[in-house]
């Protein structure tokens, strides 16, 4: 697209509103930067506890993203392509955790997967396995709140995808699985990447469901958002620095991945911008 041309057709009121939107997002960040105790920043960041929390956050959010892809893509496919009674209900159900207050989500996870939960009681009884207070519990809580972001994005892409591409593949002798891998998946790659990044970002910032379901223990379940929140009471300076670390990591990933994943070859399918 020609930047000069698109600029000239962009109406002034929209420009002003967009500028306000940019300010709305950048001012809080500037506020954090402004209040950050730069002289002590290094020691707060290199603090063992902070590094442990950061490492745990990265590990858990990557796991949550991976699980969201493994289960979320088939779910999105089911919702987009298979007509079955109650599909709208299932869709609402599977995206409910987007609107559910995360703390409530955490409590609901107890009832399902906790020691006394519908499924959790058997995990406990038969395998002596409990999710709460474990790193796996953090991953479960993060996946619970993050997966809908991927499902919604991928489902929309599957709906927009020309079904005849898949038809063409089938008529060329490709099985449905081969078609899915070689035709469908590459065609929705930008949306899948966008959905995965959204899910990852949501998982990285997850607080409520994590602390409710998995608790808060350094090294096991205390992710960076939890340590930021706890530091707010005792050491607000450290909280600000840790929050900035979280932001910096997200920023680096979002900007870094944009070019690798979102851009295709010359003349590729329209990019999903992020």
């Amino acid at each position: 697209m020609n930047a000069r041309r698109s600029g000239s057709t962009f109406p002034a009121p929209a420009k002003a509103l967009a500028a306000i939107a940019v300010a709305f997002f950048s001012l809080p960040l500037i506020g954090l930067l402004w209040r950050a105790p730069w002289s002590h920043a290094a020691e707060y960041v290199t603090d063992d506890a902070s590094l442990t929390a950061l490492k745990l956050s990265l590990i858990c959010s990557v796991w949550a993203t991976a699980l969201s892809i493994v289960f979320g893509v088939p779910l999105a496919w089911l919702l987009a392509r298979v007509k079955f009674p109650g599909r709208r209900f299932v869709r609402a159900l599977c995206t409910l955790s987007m609107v559910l207050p995360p703390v409530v989500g955490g409590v609901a996870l107890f009832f399902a997967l906790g020691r006394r939960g519908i499924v959790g009681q058997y995990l406990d009884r038969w395998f002596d396995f409990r999710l709460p207070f474990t790193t796996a519990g953090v991953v479960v809580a993060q996946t619970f709140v993050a997966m809908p972001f991927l499902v919604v994005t991928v489902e929309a892409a599957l709906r927009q995808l020309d079904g005849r591409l898949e038809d063409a593949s089938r008529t060329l002798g490709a099985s449905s699985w081969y078609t899915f891998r070689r035709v469908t998946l590459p065609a929705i790659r930008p949306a899948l990447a966008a959905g995965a990044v959204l899910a990852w970002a949501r998982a990285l910032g997850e607080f409520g469901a994590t602390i409710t379901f998995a608790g808060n223990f350094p090294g096991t379940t205390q992710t960076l958002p939890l340590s930021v929140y706890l530091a707010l009471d005792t050491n607000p300076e450290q909280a600000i620095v840790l929050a900035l670390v979280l932001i910096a990591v997200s920023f680096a990933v979002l900007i870094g991945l944009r070019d690798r994943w979102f851009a295709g070859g010359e003349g590729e399918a329209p990019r999903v911008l992020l």
Partner: protein
Amino acid sequence: MSLHAEITHRLGTLDLQVELDVQPGEVVALLGPNGSGKTTLLRCLAGLCPIDAGRIELNGVALDEPSSGTLRAPETREIGFVFQDYTLFRQMTVLENVAFGLRARGMRAAEARRMATAWIDRVGLMDYARQRPPALSGGQAQRVALARALVTSPSMLLLDEPLAALDAGTRATVRRDLRRHLATFDGVALLVTHDPVDAYALADRVAILDAGRIVQTGTLADVTAHPRSRYVADLVGVNLVAGDVLEGVLTTPAGVRVIVADAPAGPAFAVIRPHSIALNRDVDAHSSVRNSWVGTIAEVDRLGDRARVGIVGTLALTAEITTAALDALHLQLGDEINATVKATDIDVYPA
């Protein structure tokens, strides 16, 4: 390699009931108005829409037969399908697109590449083998789609409006190429089109599909000589009136009477050629002309020294008169007019 198909399939408002036989090496064009079921018929043959009842048999093998529970998936049908806008895989190169069907069937990469390359060469696109579809023109994309469909040597080739998306200039060239490829293709070929020129140039036989039924088959010349549907009549530019003949009068379902010359009794089609129709401002009671209908002028098209005049009323007709006559009559849109035709100028044949 022959196709035998008896298809009953309902899809929304479409009620498709078709019986079709195609011989090896034969190219059949499916012509018909929008929504008549042409594309759905192709999709049924490809296995993309399972039929409700009937039987599809290719080379003696049942592909789809609900009564016996037989349904072969599209990927097991040995077919080639060229979709209307080619549906090339955008993220793959031309070579990968053409090799797709071979790879999907498990052929080794080197062999698949060799065969795909041969076909790309055959359609004259060697320079584009490493390009991706967005870099191709419409005609080039069409040729890639054809090569992709033919590289697996299918028993049946299905082409859905293969030329519709092309501009007029490219169309002629691509049509000529397609004709060459179809001539050497020894399987069954079905071609959906709405352009009689395509049907004429590419097909051995046409089948006219209207509202889910094949209303006429034969060579294009046969079919246009004796239209049996409004679609064909419009295509050829004649007026078609369907009804029942009794004692020299054809009566339409709406009750309009058309006096015809000798014709056997029973359901029949009457063809009224536009230039057989005369237009007058007044009813001429003493005329020897025996058919006379009053109507309103809805459309006037001047074509050189001739003009086609669309009339609506008891009978919708298109008349063709000289522009001189048109000007002499001072005809305006909305004017009431009397259309007359001699009974001997009307062709009647049994339905």
